[in-house]
């Protein structure tokens, strides 16, 4: 016996389709505005909960579990296995770091701030065995999370990088941010750069420029030094809690403020994505 008695007819279906079409049309105008407001609200709340120019104890306590919650090691592993490195957003930083290593053989140590899944660090450490690499992040058990990447010249550290740099626990010749600085608030990022300027000769940045909810692209060079633009918040349909906000910063102005001279600056769209990107290599001014 096969019976379908759903009590729902074609006329009801047509009426429903009309309503949805009208709703989608109105939503084209409403949704970006709503999303823009949402992003700004989340940014405001995060600023209020921070300790000025560093993360508060509460935020530090929260971010470890958040990073553990979004750990998707299988997906990342398959992602890197499935395409050439130069076709990944993470891979963009590789030639930038290698450019510095080639230019200045005195660079013996590299710190990756916010390394998370250390595929890139492993790749660089393999190619430069004479350089000491440290992959640092707030995820609990960085060592275990990256167990597949163990190398003699690659260390994994679970720590708040700003505290480590200011406390003198790490003093790299080169510090890199790869899809990390964009998630750090304005005042905190500038504090990072001031702290690095005391000992670190080079800073390399490889960061996304997320579009605003309206689709607008913000030129990092047009952003005021002290007022970065909150551009993107994790969508509320993601399975995990809302993570950090992504900002567009004026990296050039921030680096100059801390006494760095920009050697390379490029804001562009990589060929394999619609996401815009910014690359920076900066050297501490004499």
């Amino acid at each position, binding site marked *: 016996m*096969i019976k379908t008695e759903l009590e729902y007819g074609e006329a009801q279906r047509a009426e429903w389709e009309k309503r949805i079409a009208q*709703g989608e049309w*109105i939503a084209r105008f409403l*949704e970006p505005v709503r999303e823009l407001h949402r992003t700004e609200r989340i940014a405001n709340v995060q600023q209020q909960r921070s300790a000025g120019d560093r993360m508060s104890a509460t935020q530090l306590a929260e971010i470890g579990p958040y990073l553990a919650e979004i750990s998707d090691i*299988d997906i990342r592993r398959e992602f890197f296995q499935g395409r050439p490195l130069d076709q990944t957003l993470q891979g963009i930083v590789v030639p930038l770091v290698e450019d510095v290593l080639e230019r200045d053989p005195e660079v013996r140590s590299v710190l990756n701030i916010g390394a998370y899944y250390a595929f890139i660090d492993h790749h660089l450490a393999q190619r430069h065995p004479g350089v000491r690499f440290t992959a640092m992040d707030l995820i609990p058990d960085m060592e275990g999370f990256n167990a597949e990447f163990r190398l003699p010249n690659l260390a994994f550290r679970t720590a708040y990088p700003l505290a480590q740099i200011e406390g003198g626990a790490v003093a790299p010749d080169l510090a890199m941010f790869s899809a990390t600085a964009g998630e750090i608030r304005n005042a905190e990022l500038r504090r990072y750069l001031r702290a690095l300027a005391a000992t670190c000769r080079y800073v390399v940045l490889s960061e996304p420029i997320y579009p605003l909810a309206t689709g607008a692209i913000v030129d990092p060079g047009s952003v005021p030094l002290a007022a970065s633009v909150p551009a993107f918040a994790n969508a509320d*349909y993601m*399975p995990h809690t809302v993570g950090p906000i992504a900002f567009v910063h004026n990296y050039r102005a921030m680096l100059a403020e801390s006494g760095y001279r920009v050697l390379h600056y490029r804001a562009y769209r990589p060929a394999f994505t619609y996401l815009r990107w910014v690359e920076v290599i900066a050297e501490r001014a004499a």
Partner: protein
Amino acid sequence: MSAQKRLEFPPWRKWWWRARIAIGRRINERVLPARELQLARDRDRVLHARSPGDSLTRYEMDKLASYMLDVQDRDIRREYFRTTPLERTFQGLVVPLVEQVVAADPSVAALANIGGNYAYIDSFLAARHPRVRFTCVDFSRNFAEYNAELARPNLDLRSGYAMQMLEAGELRADVFLFSSAAYEIKNAEVRRYFREFARAGARYVILNEPIYPMPGGAIVDPQSVPVDASVPVKSLAGFGAHRHGPLARVHNYRAMLEEAGFEMLHYHAFRPAFTDLRMVNVIAKRSGAPPA
């Protein structure tokens, strides 16, 4: 004594507020269903990207185990079944289906329910059919303890991922059952379950699944859905500590079962008299020899 009222909210502002709310409601009648539909589709896309295969990832298993703990509401369920006649409950709709199979085929000796949660129905059926061995599986780590009051000598309460049990040969039954469970499972995984059921000795599959309406009220006929492209219809809200509830889908159960080598004995997509929610009831029998 003086009574003063200086709320600085004159009637015209109240009128203006009412007008804005009324206009907003009219707009929302159009926009909200469109937004909720988009949410369901976005969630489906994200879940698919994070779980591309035909089984759950380790991450999803962990999430489900904690989610099932989070939504445990035994007192509410106990009270619900105590005060509502069984035939007027969604779960109760499965009882006549199981009894029809057990009555028609006395060789049925084992039944497994995937996604049992509160195992009231399993316990009820186990009491009525003492010669049949019932197994009820769900993700919560305290599954047996949670259902301790429903224990029966012929009811086995197992915690874990049923797919892994099937693959390991640890779960076999003559009848496999989904009751308000398959609609939360992604397309490729449901189809794999049906294949695994056949390999695990299933002669019958019974389904008792809701057909959630789409935002705005549209009803999807399961038979109109492509076998490999189920329709995400509703993102159930997560009002507890969890962020979202399940994503409800409409599958073409008939096509999926036929694909796995089962034939329909009974198929009824309908609106039960006690609710506006549509349901689909299925009894399918394996056609031919079991797969190797």
